[in-house]
């Protein structure tokens, strides 16, 4: 019955072990664990995506995710959290990101999990390039 917060933030070039992330975020004081799993979609605007190439500015990415978590901790009673983002080359269907949070009650677990993934996508220095059969593009780079 420890009150110690469970926490993990990582950027990894290895496949993400979802069970490990969930376990890391779990605590016995929690009434729910909410998990978001982001996967690679196989098409963008009707063009087949062959692969995505992810890269990060890792030292800053970790710091920015920590800031997001700190903000989430002010808003909700997070008992545990674990966030893992993959970099490197990913194929459609592969897992790119996992966010897991545990809270006493379910409502705040949904809210906190959504807040963290939304903020991550908007602020954290990670980039992906979509590679098609006939070309490639950095996602969101141009209007």
């Amino acid at each position, binding site marked *: 019955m420890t009150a110690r917060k469970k926490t993990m933030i990582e950027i990894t070039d290895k496949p993400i072990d979802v069970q490990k992330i969930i376990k890391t975020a779990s605590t016995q004081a929690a009434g729910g664990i909410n998990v978001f799993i982001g996967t690679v979609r196989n098409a963008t605007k009707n063009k087949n995506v062959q692969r995505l190439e992810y890269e*990060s500015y890792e030292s800053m990415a970790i710091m920015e995710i920590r800031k997001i978590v700190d903000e989430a901790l002010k808003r909700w009673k997070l008992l545990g959290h674990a966030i893992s983002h993959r970099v490197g080359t990913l194929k459609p269907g592969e897992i790119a990101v996992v966010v897991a949070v545990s809270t006493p009650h379910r409502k705040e677990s949904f809210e906190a999990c959504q807040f963290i*993934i939304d903020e991550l996508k908007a602020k954290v220095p990670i980039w*992906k390039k979509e590679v098609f059969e006939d070309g490639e593009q*950095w996602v969101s*780079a141009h209007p």
Partner: protein
Amino acid sequence: MKYKVKAFGIARDILGAKEVNLEIDGNQVADLRKHLSSQYPALNDLNSLLVAVNLSYAEDDLLLQESDEIVLIPPVSGG
């Protein structure tokens, strides 16, 4: 002043290197931006371009030191 500037994603493609050495007039982030936008006009076409200094997003009036870690942050697209 001389600065080492790193870049990721499409900003790296536009600079043509992971890191470039720039000699610019002035010592503020705004001066760096002015230099970049004239030397690398393709940067002006991006949705946004932020400058990170020593691991934090920097305002235009921040004073740069030659020892700073300066990194160009094009539109992020994680997740």
